[in-house]
């Protein structure tokens, strides 16, 4: 078995020591730190991205909260404005209605007064007409001239029985 031939033992050990030491030192000092740097860099990047994502999420939530607050505020404001407008309109309408009512009442009462006045006037005219017609008729039939006062007295007494 060539493995048990001690002829090359020293050579084997020597070159093993040379190459393995070189490999160990090279990996220890050059290769492994490089790989470690890459892995660390990647981990840092991942952590960074995660933290910035978290931050952005928090910001987004804050903004959402703000938007909701403003929406609520705006809703309350509009509700109040609507109420105010409704109240103002109602007041306006009722005041206008009341002023119209007053106007109408005044007009009605004016009209009543006028009607009464014209009724009185008409009555006076009727009296005069009656006096004139009676005077004429009596004059034609009897040649008696009646004074206005006498006729008026008679008419006044007769009027009571008409009414």
């Amino acid at each position, binding site marked *: 078995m060539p493995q*048990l031939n001690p002829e*090359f033992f020293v*050579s*084997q050990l020597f*070159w*093993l020591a040379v190459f393995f030491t070189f*490999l160990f030192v090279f990996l*220890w000092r050059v290769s492994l730190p490089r790989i470690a740097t*890459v*892995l660390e860099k990647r981990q840092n990047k991942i952590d960074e991205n995660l933290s910035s994502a978290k931050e952005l999420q928090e910001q987004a939530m804050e903004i959402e909260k703000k938007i909701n607050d403003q929406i609520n505020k705006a809703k309350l404001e509009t509700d109040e404005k609507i109420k105010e407008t409704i109240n103002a309109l109602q007041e306006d309408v009722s005041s206008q209605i009341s002023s119209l009512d007053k106007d109408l009442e005044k007009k009605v009462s004016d009209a009543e007064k006028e009607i009464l006045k014209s009724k009185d006037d008409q009555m006076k005219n009727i009296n005069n007409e009656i006096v004139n017609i009676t005077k004429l008729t009596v004059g034609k039939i009897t040649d008696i001239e009646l004074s206005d006062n006498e006729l008026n007295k008679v008419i006044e007494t007769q009027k009571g029985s008409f009414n």
Partner: protein
Amino acid sequence: MAAKDSPLKQFEIDPISNIELGGYNISFTNSSFAMLITVLVITLFLTLTVNTRTIIPSRMQLISELMYNFIAQLLSDTVGDNGKRYFPFVFSLFMFVLIGNMVGMVPYQFTFTSHIIVTFALAAVVFIGVTILGFVNHGIKFFTFFYIPGVPFYMHPLLIPIEVISYLSRPISLSVRLFANMLAGHTLLKVFAGFVVSMPFFTGVFPLAFIVALTGLEILIAFLQAYVFAILTCLYINDAYHLH
């Protein structure tokens, strides 16, 4: 010296250039050449693939990172936080054995892990290092490692020698495991390769098919033995920190 057609001929060492230093023969051999190739493959691969150091890795960079994470995970699982400082050593050991085994799978290439002197030297480095580490961490108390608590007192005269022997046989079991696996695998491949040539007519395809299947198995074993070598090293380091 093995015969010309012996399946063990592949393990023979041929000097490429004869060198002598202080009376010792340190010739650069085919075994040394395989080690050189192994070291070149590892260093070039791990350097060139990570050269760009991009955050989003290329496929090759990903392989380097996977190997890094594989051994880092292994070490942190078995040893914990103490293990970090031994990472370069365990990683070098794993890569050296793994790529050494793989280089041996290339036809006509020499497998230096099939030489007991090489595997024993690696195991001895681990054993001596771990023993020194144990004494540095625990001082003279490290000897209590051989004392198993919770056992009836009359068992100790039996158990302590067993523990001592099992501790001392660690470098042997560690080195022989790797050496024997490589030796057996490559010998078996060579034996069946001989069948391919010597069998009559087309019947040689059957051992050839067997060789193909066996090559797949050998690649698996090459990885597995490197893994076993690394994980046992981790466990021994852990023992140097945590006594029973």
